[in-house]
Structure formats: C-alpha cells, structure tokens
C-alpha cells in the first residue's frame, strides 16, 4: 500500500497535473519535439513506471552526492542492473518506504536547504519549489522538508526519465532532442553529460562498440565542421541581416527567394557543365565555326552568329561516343543529365513546397486578427530605429482601423454590390483580354520574324538585330501590362488586402503563362519546319529572352522604385516613398527562372547566364531597396505569400517547362544536321538504342526486362495511376476525418475549460460556506483565502481540490505506513491519480458527511451529486493536463500529419481513466464498504476504500 501511494506521489501525471504550468511544459514538451516519444504514450508511461521503480535502488546518500556532484558516474552504478525492458511493478515496495523515511529524517530540521539544481534551473526547480511552498505555507518544518524532498525526488525522476528516453534514441535524434529542451544551457549540458556517461557505460566491454562510439563522435564533429564551412560560404549574410533589420522579414523573403533560385542555378550549371560540356571540351576543344562567321559583339545580345557554333547551344554537341580514357556516350549523357536535372528540380520543389505548406498552412486561422497583431506580428529581426518607429506607427494605425471597422461593419446596398461585381467582372475581362491580346500579337510578331529570317549560316548585322524585336516586345509587355493590372486593382474594392494581392498575382500569372504558351507553341510547331538546326534557334530565342528580361528587370526597378521615389518625394509628396512590391518582384523572378528551365534542353549553359543575372540583380535590388523604398506599411502574413510563390513556381511554371521539354523529347524529331540526337526519330530513342546495346552484354537481362515490361508498358502506368489515385483518395478521406476531429477536439478543450471554471467556482463557494470543521480543514481554508485574496503574481491558481487531494494523500501516507497491505499490481498511472482523486473525494465526502448532509436518501442524492461534481472536478483537474495536452498533441498531430494513433491512445487513456473513475465512484456509494475487499479489484479502488475509511475515522473523531 505504502509503495503504491509513493508511486502515486511520484507519478508525473499527478504532479504535472497541478504543480505548475511551466513544469508541465518542461517535462512534456520534449515529447512533442521528438517523434518517438510523442508517438507512443504507452511506452513513455511505461518508462515512467520503470523509473519510479528504479529510484529506490539508490540510497538516499547516494542521491544527494549524485545531485551535488553533478552526477558522477558512480551514481549510475546503482542503476547499472536496470533492465531496459518492462519491469514488473512489484519490486519496489518496502525499500521505498524506508527510503522515504530516511530522507524525511535527514531533512527534517532544515526547511530551507538550497535546492541543489535550483542554481542552474530557472524554470524547473525554482518554480516547483516556490509552487510547493506556496501550497504549504503554514505547515511545520517536517512538512516543508517532506515537500522539498518530494520535489527533489520528482525532479530526479523527471531527469532520469528524460535521460533514459534520450539514451534510447539514436545519436542524431538525441542531439536534436537535447537541443530542443526548453532549459538553460547549463542544464542541457548536464543532461548531455549524463546521457553520454550512461550510453558509454554499458558498451564498455566490446571494442566494436567503443569504435562505433568514436566513429559516431568523429562523424558528428565532421558534420559540424561541414555546417561551419557551409556557413562560411554562405552568401550575403551581412546584407541579409541589414535588409531584415531595416525592412523586416517580408521584404527579406524576396531576397531569400532570389538566393534560393541562384543556388538552384548554380547546381544546374555544375551538373550541365560537368556532365555535358566538360567531356566535349576535353575531347574536342575547338568550336567548329564556319570560316565566314566571326565574333562581332552583337552576339552578346542576340546569342546568334558566332555563339551558335559554341557549346552554348544544343547544336554543337556531338552525337559520338567520345573515346578517351573511357568511352563516353554523348547522347546518353545529354539525355540523362537533362532528365535527372529536371527530376531533381521537381523533387526539390515538391519538398520545399510540401514543407512550406505544412509549416504555414496548417491550422492557419484568419479570425484571430488582433491577437495575432498583438502577440505574433512583431518582427524581432528589425533593428533599425526608423523602421521600428514606422512599424509602431503602422501597428497603432492598423489597430485603430480594426477597432473602428469593428464598430461599423459596412453593409452594402444592392446597387453597391452590383457595382462592385461589375467592376470585378470588367477588370477580370479586361485583364484576361489583355493577356490574350498580348499572346496573339506576340504570335504574329513571331511569324513575321520567321518570314524575314533565313536559314543561312551567317546573318547580316541587320538580320541579327531584327531578332531582338520579339524579346524586346515580350519584355516590354511583361513590364507594362502588370502596371495596368495594378491600376485596375486600385478601382476594385476588395474586402481584404489578401484577396487583392491574390487577384493581382493571378492576373500576372495568366499573362505570363499566355505569353510563354504562345512562344512555346511557336517554337515547337513552326521552327522545326523552317530551320535545319531548330533546337539551336530555340536556344537563341531563349537566350535573348533571358538577356532582355534582365535589362527590363533593371529598367523596372529604375521606373518602379527610383522614379516613383523621385516623384513621391519631389513632385507629388502625397504619393510618398514607394514600398517594395514583393509580389511583383517575386513573379518576375519566377518568370526568369521558367525561361531558364525551358532553355535547359536547348541551351545547356543557359544557367550560367542566369547565375550572372541573379547575382547582379541581387545587388541591384538591394541598392534600389535601400535607396528608394520604405518598409512595407502593412505587415502582411509573409509566410503564406511565400508558400503561394513556391507553389506558383512549381505549378504552372515548372510543370509547364517540364511538359514542354518532355514533349520535345518524346514527340519532336531532332534536327538532322546538328546536335547529339541527329538521325533519331525522337530523343527518347536513345534509351531504346542503349537497351539494345545492353542485350549483348551478359548479366544485364534484368535491365532489358525492366525497360520492356515496365518503362514501355502502358498497363504499368495505368496501374500506377490507379494506385496513386486510390492512395490519394484514402489520404483525402483521412484528412477530412481529421479536420472534423480537430473541430471536435477544440470544442472539447473549450468545454473542459468551461466545466473546470464552473466546478472550481462551485467548490470554492462550498468551502467558503463551511469554513471550520477540522483543523486540517482550517488549514485549507487559510490557504484558500490566501489564494483568493492574494496577488496575481502568486496566481499559481492551484485549485483547492488539489490541495485537498494532496493533504488527503499525505495523511493517508502517514496513517497507512503501519498497514501491511502489500503492493497490488497497478493497472496504470492514471489509476494512481484517480485513486488520488478518490481520496480527495472521500475527504470531501467526509466533510459533507460531517455537515449532516448525508442522512436522508433525498439528500443523499443531492450530496452525492455535489460530491460527484467535485469528483469530476478533481478528475478533470488531474486528467486535465494529460487529457488536454493529449488533445493538443492530437490537434498538432492532426495538423502535421503525424501518425495519429498514439495521440488517440493518450485520449483513450484519459477516457479510460474517466471511465474507471466513474466506475469506482459507483462503488464508492456502497455504504460501509468492507475493508478487506478482494485484491482482485484495482488498487485504486482499495485506496479509495481506505480513504473512505479514513474519512469515516475522522468523522468518528469529530463526533
């Protein structure tokens, strides 16, 4: 019995439930942070059970030294024999009680011993100590000692808990978990040392384990140094910091995006250059330029002429197998490099898109506006004085606006609604019409250009200059039409700024897609019939587009930012200094990147141009930003915009480029006279030929088989598609279910909160109305008063019910030390806490009892209902933290698409506990229960019985 109650005392569920919010966090947070712990509550709870079992193995002295001496390894000796598997819960009983007593006597006269780890822990120990002291302000020193002792033990348990959990993890996970512990560095280091000492200990004997330990250590160091070097190589750290400091993170996100694209291009350049260009240059490093073509300078703009005979374009790659040190098949290299690059790009995009969605769109809730503005909107990275001032101004203006908006929600009349609708319709029609018109005009322009151009080896200067017309017009359209769109936007009345931005972005996307679509159609369908080396011609057009896009980006920042700054400050001060338009600029980047993606097949070295372009653009935009712009007035929700942009980059643009390249490779006949694929019907035939070649090599039949039966079979793709569709459907259903569940669980949190408040008020009222019954009761009363009268700073808001439970529990322990009921198997930790509540309940009932409420049957019902309520209250209190944290875990798990079974098992546990409590409650009402009830019942029940008995004893004493 004793052992059982001790277990109860050390039960984290019980402690976490009430002692302190922060404690609960510090102990339960890592469970969220590490996937294993969060997934399997049973395992954790099991671990806790084990740990409480282990504690008695140390003697008190050892524990103290262990604490003071910072957990020398000796202190672990006691724990060496700890089996890691599930431990039977029978082992602990008697040791434990002696241990308890020993400690009690040791600390008896010294109530205010400095708590050893409080010097390092500003969250856990100190808080807990305060909380506990606050709970027992009037108790005698023995009690205080008891409390401190209990605190200490619990601390130790928690710590051991954590250490054991960490030891069980892999090194990498362990480090992550340690990093994410919400405590100070000193404490983390302490835990880390413990974990290291512990994990090294058992592996002492085998050399192999020692080696692997060393290897993992050196791997880790190596990883750190790689990270360090990467940081050294990181571009623009200082500039980024400066921009973030002056303009906040929403503007910074543009630069982050730009840098990300730059990295993308560097990667693709390295791949293309390494696998396609270098082998060719090694084999044959002189470009075979016809004698009448020479470098004239205009090529830098047009990409035609001399350039078309260099490795810049598709046309000058050979179709031979290069024989140097090894045989190098250019055809295969070209095909697979491009294919692999596209696939890698797609994967990178999908991953960053998915993670961005997960981070930014889960549970994103637009309703809580002022809460968000107050607590989440402040940008801690802003360090510039002017920017800070501006931000505070903007924020107060926005708050005032939101208040006044709230005051008078404008109700639109029908005519106003019709007018708004008309404006929407008009501007949508107009903008779509503009996009289509631009597409059509560009198509005709292309046709016109194609009529003028000839398929000659060298063009006259004029002919070459004429090719610049199309890219010029395209870039001009891209620059000017968005300005019109912004203008339309001013006339429309959108209810939220976000919708306005979305509409603007959508129109711009439509425009760019229509232009690119027309150009692609022209390249795919018209050029191949008219030019002998049409791939190079496409490459040239793309080159020109990229170059002109760059010029117009510069012009755009000149007009968009510099001119409007000049106008805003000198000519029309009403306009003010312009803001940096993140949406427009990011769209420009996306467009530029799309050009590079389309061009990758036709001009493998286009990424080099792109790198140069982005590099210059970064500095240009930075200068333009710091010279001309002011920080954005509205601190929009930048993270979501960023997600949208990554999505846009992926969906119409990357997918479009990919399908264009894929169409070229599958369907179009490569030109006969140039390029690596000359003589083939389509590019993909390379693979077929390669497989045919493989047939002759013995041992490669499987590759041939895979090619014929998997890659070339329609049925495979058909089945695959079906399979994926089924999976998508299932996941969609699951996510729908989870959505509903989230709503329900949230509702449950709200309800529980309400219940809790209601019951707490009831309980307090009840206690206030019957102040003096027992000496103990008085003490509680004093406590209650102190709590309710007192200070918000002490507002631990420990419920009285809890205090009562504690006292009842303590009393139980004191009284029952002599009793010789041996430990009974414990079903679960929850039962402990429910037993506690049971005890508290019994106490409560004793009170009502003594008040004489429990005499007639009718009153029986009423009192039982009050008591039941209190009981529910108590139950809720103790299960609340687990229950609601379970719910929260649940909600989060739902949100982040984790496996939800474990979370629901927490719920299940909570539910079980509830049910159990209720069952026990029913039992409780059996008058005068036999004390020697069969041990087959749960020990919780027995304890409840004992509590009841004790309550009756008290009742007897009282009268």
């Amino acid at each position: 019995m004793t052992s059982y109650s001790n277990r109860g005392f050390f039960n984290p569920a019980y402690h976490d439930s009430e002692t302190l919010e922060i404690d609960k966090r510090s102990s339960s947070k890592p469970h969220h942070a590490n996937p294993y712990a969060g997934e399997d509550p049973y395992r954790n709870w099991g671990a806790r059970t084990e740990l409480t079992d282990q504690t008695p193995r140390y003697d008190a002295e050892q524990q103290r030294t262990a604490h003071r001496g910072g957990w020398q390894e000796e202190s672990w000796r006691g724990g060496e024999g700890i089996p890691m598997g599930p431990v039977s819960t029978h082992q602990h009983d008697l040791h434990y009680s002696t241990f308890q007593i020993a400690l009690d006597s040791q600390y008896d006269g010294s109530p205010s011993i400095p708590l050893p780890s409080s010097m390092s822990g500003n969250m856990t120990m100190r808080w807990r100590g305060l909380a506990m002291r606050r709970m027992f302000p009037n108790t005698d020193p023995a009690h205080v000692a008891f409390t401190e002792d209990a605190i200490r033990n619990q601390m130790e348990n928690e710590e051991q808990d954590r250490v054991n959990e960490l030891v069980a993890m892999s090194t990498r996970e362990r480090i992550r978990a340690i990093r994410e512990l919400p405590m100070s560095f000193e404490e983390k280091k302490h835990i880390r040392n413990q974990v290291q000492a512990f994990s090294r200990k058992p592996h002492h004997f085998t050399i192999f384990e020692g080696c692997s330990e060393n290897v993992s250590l050196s791997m880790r160091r190596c990883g750190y140094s790689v990270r360090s070097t990467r940081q050294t190589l990181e571009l623009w750290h200082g500039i980024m910091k400066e921009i973030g400091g002056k303009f906040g993170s929403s503007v910074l996100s543009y630069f982050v995006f730009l840098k990300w694209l730059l990295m993308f291009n560097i990667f693709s350049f390295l791949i293309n250059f390494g696998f396609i260009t270098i082998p060719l240059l090694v084999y044959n490093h002189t470009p075979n330029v016809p004698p009448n073509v020479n470098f004239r300078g205009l090529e830098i703009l047009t990409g035609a002429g001399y350039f078309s005979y260099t490795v810049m374009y598709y046309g000058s790659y050979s179709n031979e197998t290069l024989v140097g040190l090894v045989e190098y098949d250019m055809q295969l290299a070209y095909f697979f490099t491009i294919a692999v690059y596209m696939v890698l790009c797609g994967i990178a995009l999908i991953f960053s898109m998915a993670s961005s969605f997960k981070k930014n769109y889960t549970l994103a809730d637009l309703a809580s506006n002022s809460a968000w503005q107050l607590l989440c909107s402040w940008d801690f990275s802003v360090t510039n004085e002017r920017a800070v001032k501006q931000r505070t101004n903007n924020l107060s203006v926005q708050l005032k606006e939101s208040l006044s908006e709230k005051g008078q929600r404008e109700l639109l009349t029908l005519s106003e609604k019709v007018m708004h609708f008309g404006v929407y319709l008009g501007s949508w029609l107009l903008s779509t019409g503009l996009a289509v018109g631009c597409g059509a005009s560009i198509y005709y322009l292309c046709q016109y250009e194609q009529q003028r151009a000839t398929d000659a080896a060298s063009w006259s200067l004029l002919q070459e200059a004429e090719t610049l017309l199309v890219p010029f017009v395209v870039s001009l359209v891209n620059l000017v039409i968005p300005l019109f769109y912004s203008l339309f936007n001013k006339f429309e009345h959108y209810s939220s700024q976000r919708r306005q931005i979305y509409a603007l972005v959508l129109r711009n996307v439509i425009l760019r897609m229509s232009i690119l679509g027309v150009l692609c159609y022209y390249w795919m369908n018209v050029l191949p019939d008219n030019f002998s080396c049409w791939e190079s011609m496409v490459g040239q057009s793309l080159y020109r587009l990229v170059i002109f896009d760059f010029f117009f980006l510069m012009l755009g920042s000149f007009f968009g930012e510099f001119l409007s700054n000049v106008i805003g400050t000198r000519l029309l001060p009403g306009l003010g200094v312009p803001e940096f338009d993140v949406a427009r600029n990011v769209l420009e980047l996306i467009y530029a990147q799309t050009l590079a993606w389309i061009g990758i097949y036709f001009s493998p070295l286009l990424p080099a141009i792109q790198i140069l372009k982005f590099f210059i653009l970064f500095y240009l935009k930075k200068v333009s930003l710091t010279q001309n712009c002011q920080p954005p007035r509205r601190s929009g929700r930048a993270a979501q915009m960023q997600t949208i942009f990554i999505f846009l980059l992926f969906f119409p643009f990357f997918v479009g480029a990919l399908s264009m390249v894929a169409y070229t490779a599958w369907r179009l006949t490569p030109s006969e006279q140039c390029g690596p694929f000359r003589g083939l019907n389509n590019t993909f035939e390379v693979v077929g030929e390669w497989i045919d070649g493989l047939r002759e090599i013995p041992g490669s039949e499987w590759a041939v088989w895979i090619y014929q039966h998997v890659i070339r079979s329609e049925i495979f793709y058909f089945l695959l598609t079906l399979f994926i569709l089924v999976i998508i459907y299932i996941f969609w259903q699951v996510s729908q279910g989870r959505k509903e569940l989230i709503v329900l669980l949230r509702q449950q949190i709200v309800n529980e909160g309400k219940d809790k408040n209601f019951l707490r008020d009831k309980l307090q009222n009840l206690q206030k109305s019957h102040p003096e019954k027992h000496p103990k009761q008085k003490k509680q009363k004093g406590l209650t008063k102190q709590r309710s009268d007192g200070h918000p700073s002490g507002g631990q808001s420990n419920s009285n019910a809890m205090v009562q439970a504690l006292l009842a529990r303590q009393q139980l322990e004191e009284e029952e030390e002599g009793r010789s009921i041996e430990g009974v198997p414990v079903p679960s930790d929850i039962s402990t806490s429910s037993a506690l509540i049971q005890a508290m309940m019994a106490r409560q009932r004793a009170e009502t009892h003594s008040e004489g409420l429990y005499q007639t049957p009718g009153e029986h019902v009423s009192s039982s209902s009050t008591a039941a309520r209190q009981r529910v209250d108590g139950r809720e209190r103790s299960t609340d933290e687990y229950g609601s944290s379970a719910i929260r875990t649940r909600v989060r798990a739902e949100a982040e698409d984790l496996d939800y079974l474990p979370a629901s098992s927490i719920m299940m546990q909570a539910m079980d506990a509830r049910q159990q409590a209720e069952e026990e409650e029913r039992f409780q009402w059996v008058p005068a229960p036999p004390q020697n009830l069969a041990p087959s019942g749960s020990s919780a029940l027995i304890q409840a019985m004992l509590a009841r008995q004790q309550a009756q004893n008290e009742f007897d004493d009282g009268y």
Partner: protein
Amino acid sequence: MGNKQTIFTDEQLDAYQDCTFFTRKEILRLHGRYHELAPHLVPMDYTNDPDCKLPLALIVNMPELKENPFRSRIVESFSEDGMGNLSFNEFVDMFSVLSETAPRELKAIYAFKIYDYNVDNYLCKEDLEKTLNKLTKEELTPEEVELVCEKTIEEADLDGDNKLSYADFENMITRAPDFLSTFHIRI
C-alpha cells in the same frame, strides 16, 4: 585559427554545438560579441568556465536588441536570476532560441515568457496592455488599449478563464505561421 582555439576547448565547443543551434564558428562569433560588450570584464579565455555576468544595461545596448521594444524582457527571461544579468552561457541560450533553426515549440515557450511580465504563467490583461503599449509606443488611448486587449483575449482564450495560458498561446502560435520567421534575431 591558432588563437581562436584558446577561447574554448574542443569539448566545450562540442557541448555548445550539441546543446544549441549554433556551429563552432557562430559560438566564437557570439563570444566575440559578448566580449565586445565589456572587454575589460569578459575574459578571452573561457576554457575554465569563468564566472562572469554582464548586467542588463550592457546587453540591451547591442545593436540587435537596441531598438527592440521587448529588449529588457528578452534579456530578463533568459537570465537565471530574472534580473537580466546574463552569463555567456545564457547569452548563447538567448540567441540560440532566437536563431533561425530553433523549433516552433521552443520559441513559443520563450515568447510566452517574454510576454508574461508578472511571471504568473498566464498572459493576463495587464501583460497584454504592457505589450501593446510597448508595441505602439503608447499611442493608443486607454480605452483602445482596453478594447484591443479584450479582443485579443476573446480571440485566443480557449478555456474561457479570461487570461491566456500557455496552451492558448501555443495554440495561437501554431496558427500564425509568420511567428517562426519573426521571432528571430540574426546575429
């Protein structure tokens, strides 16, 4: 590199790298910054863990914190004594939590501490009022402040106790994706 090695031993640097989100280089950079704050107080040699703390007044003068309306609260939340005296380890802690790689949960815990002025583990109305006044430089009238705070509590309070517990706060944070990028100080 030679003289850099003497600031910390390899074991210390390993411990820092295991327990914070920083690399060796960043730790050294942080030490440099810490040293800069009070060159005569902070030793260059940290191999034997000198006991040295800098007061709040010195730390809030860092350019990263100088303009931040919550600067003293940030420093206080990370100081062990609650008064804002930071040892180097606490200094590292502070920037580790505020670094880019720190997870949302960790950031939320400390953000809650920062906003919890009276350290009662709840964001009550007074806390919110103080926060709001710092954010707006007291430009709102008391009534407006009152209204905004009420609205905030109304929006974020799940369990209806008229103050925001950590759970409420965390719940709100998970719905505000920007928090991760805004609760971030580059060092």
